[in-house]
């Protein structure tokens, strides 16, 4: 319940954060809201020697309408996404999903950047980023680069971020098709999704159906070929490899993926 000892460093600017990260090397981790990292540290599953607190980088907390896309600072909290009038109008899927992360206390601290950079296939926002065809903007010692969400999630808790690279912005194109749905299946409301399905228009992403968040390619292809929701949803488990764990067996997860995809597609269609 008590983290192993570490040194705390506070960054006043993005530049300073990058410098501190370079200095700390592989002993260092960024600390944003801390609600992915600190729980791991408290159980001593993660033992970074240096924590670089980027939580006060106010310049990374914003939600802006930028002409064709919405730009969201990586340090924007789930709470702010949930209550954003701009998102309610332009990206209701994101506002809604952010409002389902954890509980209210978690949402007052956790950030979209922290969640996406953590790369947990069981978290909601990575899948949402996929469904929204987001672009992740990262800054490192050698400058800025843009990474498509479809290239971002590499493996179990592994993203495309290089050591020391800082996620600064999540850029989301305004969806051409407005229908959306977010189906998060849990036993208790506060649980991580046993399985989740995220739909925006013709894009379908899955939560907790493998070691990475993923798009349901089979479903998308069927939809593009004109299949109805139920027929398209029959492909939901294709290409996935859900674990069998305390939450569910593989077979049950695959079944849920199909059921939730059917419901998500129907709900999205009703919102078109």
């Amino acid at each position, binding site marked *: 319940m008590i983290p192993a000892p570490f040194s705390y460093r506070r960054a006043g600017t993005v530049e300073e954060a990058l410098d501190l990260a370079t200095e700390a090397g592989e002993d260092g981790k960024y600390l944003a809201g801390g609600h992915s990292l600190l729980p791991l540290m408290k159980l001593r599953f993660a033992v970074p020697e240096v924590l670089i*607190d980027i*939580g006060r980088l106010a310049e990374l907390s914003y939600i802006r309408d930028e002409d064709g896309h919405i730009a969201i600072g990586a340090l924007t909290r789930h709470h702010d996404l949930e209550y954003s009038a701009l998102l309610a109008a332009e990206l209701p899927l994101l506002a809604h999903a952010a409002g389902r992360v954890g509980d209210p*206390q978690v949402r007052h601290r956790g950030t979209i950047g922290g969640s996406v950079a953590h790369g947990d296939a069981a978290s909601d926002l990575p899948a949402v980023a996929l469904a929204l065809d987001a672009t992740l903007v990262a800054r490192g010692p050698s400058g800025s680069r843009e990474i498509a969400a479809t290239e971002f999630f590499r493996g179990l808790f592994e993203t495309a971020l290089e050591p020391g690279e800082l996620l600064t912005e999540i850029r989301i194109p305004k969806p051409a098709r407005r229908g959306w749905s977010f189906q998060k299946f849990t036993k208790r409301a506060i649980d991580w999704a046993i399985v989740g399905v995220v739909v925006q228009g013709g894009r379908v992403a899955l939560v907790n159906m493998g070691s990475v968040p993923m798009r349901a390619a089979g479903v998308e292809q069927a939809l593009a070929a004109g299949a109805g929701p139920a027929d398209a949803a029959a492909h939901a488990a294709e290409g996935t490899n859900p674990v069998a764990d305390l939450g569910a067996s593989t077979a049950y997860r695959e079944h849920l993926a199909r059921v939730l995809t059917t419901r998500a597609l129907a709900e999205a269609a009703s919102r078109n």
Partner: protein
Amino acid sequence: MKVAISVNGRQVEAEVEDRLLLAHFVREVAGLTATNIGCDTTSCGACTVLLDGESVKSCTVLAAQADGHEVTTCEGLAGADGQWHAVQQGFHAEHGLQCGFCTPGMMMAAVSLLAENPNPTEEEVRTGLEGNICRCTGYHNIVRAVLAAARDGQPAQEAS
């Protein structure tokens, strides 16, 4: 490292370990033990305080992160004249506590909930308190307490 945190309006400064959790800062450094620790996975909410007016689980915030900010705990809910906050009144009137261990955190979560949603439905209260576990009450009277607090007004206005 040195931190300075305003706790219930009082400035508390101390030299602390970098890894000190805000929950322990409140309990051990500021000496306010109403805020309790009930788990180690950010699940139970017993440690909930307000950080700059918003509910957070103080076990998952470093004191360092709260440095220079304002923390409100259960002990800071009542008015300066001792007048109970509407949430406190509600919890008493509706028997919303039994052993009392989850109560400070539950009340702070409720205060934050009502600040963001002054007129919640029963369902919104239950969802709003999803981050707080109570083992004694079955939540029935906690929900009534929060709804009563919502009905009966804002802090320091109604006679108790």
